């Protein structure tokens, strides 16, 4: 998908995590929470996010970080790669062994509820799979780590 002429209105880390209409990667979604993909800069791992709220989660980082995908306080405090592939599970903290994308969606929904905002369903109820990301986002998409347990390949 070509996104080179789009000025992103909001930076978020994955599918289904946009706060408003027209805030997804293509700028065409109808409603909050229904966007197709991340607008935050794609990055492969821990501490590489540009700013607040732009870190993914799940493969490196402590329990607090891994419990707050897309909700980090500052640049370089994100736990892991953006976008968040659906196969990824947390390796530490209360969410250990559970889906990172579902945790990100839960954090997103809590923030929207607190703000009194409505939101729609994600295009994919468990987030985008690696296969979907490679086809629709970036054919070279890879998550991090050498073990392959990210479900997104290995980055060394």
């Amino acid at each position, binding site marked *: 998908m070509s996104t080179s002429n789009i000025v992103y209105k909001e930076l978020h880390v994955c599918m289904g995590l946009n706060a408003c209409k027209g805030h997804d990667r293509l700028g065409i979604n109808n409603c909050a929470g229904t966007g197709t993909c991340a607008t935050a800069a794609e990055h492969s*791992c*821990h*501490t*590489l996010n540009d700013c607040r709220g732009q870190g993914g989660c*799940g*493969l*490196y*980082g*402590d*329990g*607090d*970080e891994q419990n707050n995908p897309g909700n980090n*306080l*500052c640049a*370089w*405090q994100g736990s892991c790669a953006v976008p968040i592939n*659906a*196969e*990824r*599970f947390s*390796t*530490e903290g209360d969410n*250990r*062994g*559970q*889906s990172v994308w579902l945790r990100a969606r839960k954090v997103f929904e809590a923030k929207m509820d607190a703000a009194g905002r409505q939101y729609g369903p994600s295009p994919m109820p*468990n*987030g985008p*799979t690696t296969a979907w990301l490679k086809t629709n986002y970036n054919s070279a998409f890879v998550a*991090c*780590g*050498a*073990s*392959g*347990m*990210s*479900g997104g390949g*290995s*980055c*060394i």
Partner: protein
Amino acid sequence: MEFKLSVLDELKFHLQIAIQVELSTIPIYLYTYYSINRRPEKCDQYGPPNDYMIATFANKAGGTIMSVAIEEMLHMSLASNILRAVGGTPKIYGLSPQSFPTNLLEHRPGPLFDLAKLSVYQLNQFLLIEKPEAKDAPPESDNWDTLGQFYDYILTLVEKLQDSDFQHGDSYQLSDKKGSGTTGYYVSSNVDTIYPDNAVAFTKPIEKNNPIQPLESSAHYSNQDDSGNLMVINSKASAKAAITMIKDQGEGYNHDDTHKPDDPSKKEDSHWYKFNSLLTQSQNFTADEWNCFLFQFPNNPKRANTPAEYVCVVDLVNAVYSYLLKITEVSYTLTGNAQYAMFYIGMHKGMIFILDKLIGNMRYTAISPDGTVLAPTFENFPFQTDDPKQELLALCDTVSARYPGICDANIAQRIYDLPDVNIKYTPEGVAIVNF
């Protein structure tokens, strides 16, 4: 006239030795770790089920060794915390072994430990490093046989001191929660310490309604978060707890004769047991099967023996390694957010995205007709100026220009982003960490 150290000074002396012993194990373990291809494709030639058995062993060996290496970093940091608590300043930069093979500092003469690829011999060497002490073994200040006996001697020194002796530097220590950030310095598990119980999990389709499966249910966690943490030392009790944790993670909980568990919860295996388990499984494979998942790392490579055209790569990797040791050492002179920026950002970026990627890339370069590949030498890099980051950037430019497949633009940017260890201070004396 006989010169006798005070108990406190003797403790500081031995803690510095402990720091260097722990530091010297890190390159030994990392070198072997990077000799392993954890997702080997060449093993497919052996067909099922042998290919899965080999691939499972390769991934387990990698996850296990990384899980131990991470805890050796924890041990070095804990010894440094105790030294800081009693008023000392940890010295780390430039104190990694200058060449291999090497003995461990103050260890009895005899064993020499190599930088070597994974093998039965190397696993036996790992078992020597982590050798459990006998029940009646005496504490040993030097010429020690087991690391447990050396730490027992440190415990005897701690016992002779008062709580007030351990209250000289809480804020300078590295601990689990630092700075205004909510994140911790030490995490026991990550994607590199876990491995699949069976590599066949990689071949199964993901479950449509639960895409984290089948990988998640296959995941084995080598380390557990109840096993140890980066604790602040401010009393005799906390110093003894830290030393006991170091001992037990290595040689096993001392109330269990199997040396398997590292604490009463029995959730995590000791280093010794982990390596013994790998050794047992390693006997199952032929030489050809070993080679299908190993990079052909040489034994004890040295910069001096590196082909001239690749010396710049070895220098860059050594410089990054040394810079990370510098970051660690400097972090013990900082407090609060300045320390957080230096250590958290510097070490995480440096370890995971610079050193890991450079070594991961360089090992695909054959340097001799027999298939030997370019491997890290883990030598101390002698920075020549008071601005080591500029030296690092210059080396990075050289390697990027000659070998963009080893140091690409992403890695170069991450090196640029590292905090500057050349600390500047405000007129009020507050340290400023730039990155």
